């Protein structure tokens, strides 16, 4: 178990800059997820931690040890591969034994540790099977057992669930989380699936174009995105542009394309002055029916209303702008019907940076 620290990592493949100054600090026993679209540099970051790729610039620390020049086979950072990378010519037992043999663990101890690891992942009944005789979920577990049996300082996961079907994925990600909490191993998990990241992580690092956009706990990341990229990438969001009209104690008064709204001050690292252009976001589920005496009215016409089972997705045209709302259960609103909705000031987020569409 170890802390992990990345300091200003840079990496290019030829002309393409893949990682553009990533810094990151992971606490002992923490489960951290690198989240971003494909090609954002998250897997390369993982490979740099594992030692399969060398950064052009920057430092990697396990605890206080600089490991830049440590070979991958000496790093003690076990990886679970997207493809599982099980050795096809070896039994389950020998796959799990591989790391122990390489570390020259005594044979008797090997056996105990292998069966302990297999028990943890629930595969103690199949030590003699070949990987090809196992289902995808079972192969995943073998890969996990193989990674934890060597008692690594850090566990690395490279989209380990992307080859499983949706139901199994939900199940295994909870198991991975439980396992990690029981063992207390510092873990770095790479995924492009925001739902997976929200479920499994202590903290999430959102990466875009080789840069860190935001590092936060899942709840804060969802409710308090700092950039338009984060707001857009995690969950659905209505993102817009406005101008600060006035500043009150707890909120800004912002003029937008579809009305004037009060937006909570908290968040958005920089303070704004009157006349500033700002980007803002709110979540579809933040709409509610308007009640007399409250602020932040949205008057519009229903363009589309889609019943989704547990909720209804509504698309509303407000002064020419189409916004998306979601309400729990079935909402009896028909197309072309006029509605008056509102979004509370606490649900508006003022964002940093440009809107990328």
């Amino acid at each position, binding site marked *: 178990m170890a802390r992990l620290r990345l300091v200003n990592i840079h990496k290019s493949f030829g002309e393409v800059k893949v990682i553009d100054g990533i810094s990151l600090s992971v606490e002992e026993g923490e489960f951290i997820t690198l989240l971003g679209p494909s090609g954002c540099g998250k897997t390369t970051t993982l490979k740099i931690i*594992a*030692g*399969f790729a060398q950064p052009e610039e920057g430092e990697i620390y396990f605890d206080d040890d600089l490991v830049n020049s440590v*070979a*991958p*086979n*000496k790093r003690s*950072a*076990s*990886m679970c*591969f*997207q*493809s599982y*990378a*099980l*050795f*096809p*010519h070896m039994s389950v037992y020998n796959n799990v034994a*591989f*790391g122990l043999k*390489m*570390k020259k663990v005594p044979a008797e101890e090997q056996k105990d540790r292998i069966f302990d690891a297999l028990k943890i992942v629930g595969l103690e009944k199949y030590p003699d099977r*070949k990987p*090809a*005789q196992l289902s995808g979920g079972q192969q995943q577990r073998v890969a996990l057992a*193989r990674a934890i049996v*060597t008692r690594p300082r850090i566990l690395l996961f490279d989209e380990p669930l992307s080859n499983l079907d949706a139901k199994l994925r939900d199940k295994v990600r909870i198991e991975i989380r439980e396992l990690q909490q029981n063992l207390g191993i510092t873990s770095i998990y790479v995924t492009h699936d925001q739902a997976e990241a929200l479920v499994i992580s202590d903290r999430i690092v959102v990466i875009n174009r080789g840069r860190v956009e935001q590092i936060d706990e899942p709840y804060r990341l969802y409710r308090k995105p700092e950039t338009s990229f984060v707001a857009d990438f995690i969950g659905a969001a209505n993102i817009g542009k406005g101008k600060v009209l006035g500043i009150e104690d707890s909120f800004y008064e912002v003029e937008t394309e579809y009305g004037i709204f009060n937006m909570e001050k908290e968040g958005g690292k920089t303070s704004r002055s009157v006349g500033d252009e700002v980007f803002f976001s709110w979540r579809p589920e933040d709409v509610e029916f308007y009640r007399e005496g409250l602020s932040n009215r949205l008057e519009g016409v229903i363009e589309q209303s889609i019943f989704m089972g547990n909720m209804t997705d509504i698309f509303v045209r407000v002064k020419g702008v189409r916004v998306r709302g979601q309400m729990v259960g079935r909402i009896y609103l028909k197309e072309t019907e006029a509605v008056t909705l509102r979004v509370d000031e606490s649900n508006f987020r003022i964002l940093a940076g440009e809107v990328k569409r």
Partner: protein
Amino acid sequence: MKSEKLNIFLFLLPGAGFILFFLASAFILTILQSLGLFTLIGESKFTFEHWKMIFEQEFRDSFLFSLKVGIGSAFGTLLFSYPIALYLRKKGFGKKTLGSLIKIPLFIPALVVAFLIVNLISYHGLINSLLMALGIIDEPLRMLNDQFGWGVLFVQVWKNIPFQLLIISSSLATIRDDLEDAALNLGANKLQVIGRIIIPLSIPGILVAVILVFIMTFGDFAITKVAGPVYPTSMSVRMLTEAMTFQEWNRAAVMGVVIMATALIFVSFYTKIAKLLQENSK
């Protein structure tokens, strides 16, 4: 049901019939000839008389010589082709060019290869002249037409490296890079990765490469004729002598059958081992 089978037979006939006629008929004729039938010269009569030659000293020497050259070339070539294949496996500077250059012998006929190498290793060839000029040896080494067949082995290895390289490279290409990464990640060093992951997973390719080169060299004519010893000589060389020099077509046929049978035995070995390996890896 019966007519369905007949239909299948009839549909297959144009293709399969062609193969059957031209391949099988040649095989069968050779076998019959070795048994004294269909004799081109003299009378035809069924007899095992010609097969008695397999107990003759000359026959045994030729057979053992061919076996030695076959096995020696197959594994001797592997000694070079496998490390080269490993080296060329990962992309690197100049490797593409090197990979192409190394394939050149593949496109040169065996006889021409033999002559090329003769210039190199003959009694007054380049290597001997060089060694003498450097004062390393006082008189030339006999590397060509030597009793053991080193000259033949040398030429065979030179000729067959690119062939084995092709087979082994494609076999290595099927091994995914992340298996290597996984082994490294679990603490294996580069040698252990090769010994425990790459070699075991490329055994089917190695087998094909070794067996195909064995079959080709076991039946070799041209290279033995040029670079081989005067006696013993290879099965094919001897077969031609029997037929052309002694007009013993039936005896030549016996040798032909033995060459084919040996090849078949090795192929069946190969299929058995390959099947076993496949079951193992399931």
